[in-house]
């Protein structure tokens, strides 16, 4: 797919933006806090209907405005589909968001998944290696959904069941009455169905990601280290239904769901040592980058065409060698990148946009 035109209204500090996006590389330049990343965040919003910075929907609406609109013209680049697709997402400060495709309102926002595909690279990616399991689960789940959009609904339903179950456990107040047991049985049956489905998809994806990540790591870090990526879900040996049954007394006593896909991890290691605790800062950066690049390759293979690359200030955190390695490995795809300063050698944007005080102007 390819992004052609983009319109924004009251998205973060961007009050009114209208622009044509280059077929190749678009560079977005400007000082910090002017709104460069907001532009990338808006494009990514159309892909996932969420902020890649983890901000809640209300935070994306400009202060004082009632709603924000992200509108884009997209070329699906699929044989037999010559016409561009017009996508409009309306985010409200209060109330339900709306998504329209070719001026038809989608019954469910999740039906949009797959229409716009992006790969986001940000300085924050280091947290995938250094941070908690939630960051690694999110990386894997995002790739799972990008590969098969129907799993977006599974992921959404699973979150909902976990919230319902957590609330029920709190309401139980540590006591298992027959009523609580009967309702808990129902949530557990749903949780186990959805959890097994998502875990299988995660395991499959990790299996595909590992060899790619290893290869890219060696290229980026110019070494031959053995990188492993493994999905850790201790409950899978006995199955989620049995694991939930076993943990029930404990769950009721503590008022939380102690076992399940929301507690899983994806372990990363370099040369047999856990990357989170034993790798150097430089190795961790290379691995974070390798995981993103490998994910991008995977999604490109599955989708047939590459997703739009969104590179948020990635060069500021990399030393010259790693910057050069990234430039050399950047896939040939439509890309938008933000930067505060000069671009590394070999990066030649087709279009340069300057962002100042929430206004976007074409510089060249």
């Amino acid at each position, binding site marked *: 797919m390819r992004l052609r035109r983009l319109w924004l209204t009251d998205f973060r500090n961007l009050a009114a933006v209208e622009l044509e996006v280059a077929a190749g590389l678009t560079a977005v330049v400007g000082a910090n806090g002017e709104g460069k990343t907001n532009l990338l965040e808006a494009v990514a919003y159309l892909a996932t209907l969420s902020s890649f910075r983890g901000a809640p929907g209300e935070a994306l609406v400009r202060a004082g405005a009632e709603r924000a609109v992200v509108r884009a013209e997209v070329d699906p680049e699929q044989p037999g589909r010559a016409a561009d697709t017009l996508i409009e997402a309306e985010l409200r400060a*209060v109330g339900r968001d709306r998504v329209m495709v070719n001026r038809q309102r989608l*019954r*469910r926002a999740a039906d949009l998944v797959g229409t716009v595909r992006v790969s986001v690279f940000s300085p924050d990616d280091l947290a995938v290696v250094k941070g908690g399991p939630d960051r690694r689960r999110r990386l894997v789940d995002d790739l799972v959904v990008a590969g098969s959009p129907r799993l977006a609904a599974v992921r959404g*339903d699973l979150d909902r*069941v976990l919230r*319902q179950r957590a*609330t029920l456990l709190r*309401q139980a107040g540590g006591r298992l009455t027959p009523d609580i047991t009967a309702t808990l049985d129902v949530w557990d049956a*749903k949780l186990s169905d959805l959890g097994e489905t998502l875990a299988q998809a995660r395991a499959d994806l990790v299996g595909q990601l590992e060899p790619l990540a290893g290869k890219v790591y060696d290229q980026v870090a110019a070494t031959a280290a053995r990188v492993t990526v493994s999905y850790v879900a201790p409950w899978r040996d006995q199955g989620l239904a049995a694991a939930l049954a076993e943990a029930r007394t404990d769950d009721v006593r503590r008022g939380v769901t102690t076992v399940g896909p929301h507690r899983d991890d994806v372990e990363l290691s370099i040369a047999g040592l856990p990357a989170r605790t034993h790798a150097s800062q430089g190795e961790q950066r290379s691995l974070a980058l390798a995981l993103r690049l490998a994910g991008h390759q995977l999604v490109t293979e599955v989708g047939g065409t590459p997703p739009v690359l969104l590179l948020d200030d990635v060069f500021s955190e990399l030393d010259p060698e790693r910057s050069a390695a990234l430039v050399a490995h950047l896939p040939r795809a439509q890309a938008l990148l933000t930067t505060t300063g000069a671009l590394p050698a070999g990066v030649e944007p087709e279009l340069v946009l300057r962002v100042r005080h929430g206004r976007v102007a074409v510089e060249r």
Partner: protein
Amino acid sequence: MYAGPVQDLIEELGRLPGVGPKSAQRIAFHLLKLPKQDALRLARAVTEVKERVTLCTRCFNVAEGDECGVCVDSRRESGVLCVVEEPRDIVAVEKTHEYRGRYHVLQGAISPIEGIGPDQLKVRELLARLEPEEISEVILCTNPNIEGEATAMYLARLLRPLGLKVTRIASGLPVGGDLEYADELTLGRALEGRREVEA
């Protein structure tokens, strides 16, 4: 923020589903500008609906008397019940012309987040109808979202040991959606293709 009656109106409107504080304020000022007879007509409609319309004592559909139009209709097939979440779901099922039996409205779905458990639903009332009305099949027609599915599973586990035929409308409805948004043809096919639940 505003003087007495205006603030009261804004607060009352803000309690309605889907109406946020800003919309409540907008509606309140719209009502203020309205000609008096128009505003009074709205007030009367609200009062009338609360005074004259009640819930059917048998199935909990909206009714103008003791029992609703469906329950008093003797041409309705007996022995089968279609269980729905809300009265508006009855309207959706009726539009399909695929169903000739009576209904039971749960008045919601199991959702701990909203403080709704089986006790808050009309489940006991459903069980009480089975014997006197000689019910042999119960069709679970709750919404195809997580809460609706959980409610259907809960009821299936409750009803099957009683020796009833328990069926669930077929999948094929937009997943995660509400019955009221499904078109007649799709919902009709889902009813026709209903399958026995293995709980």
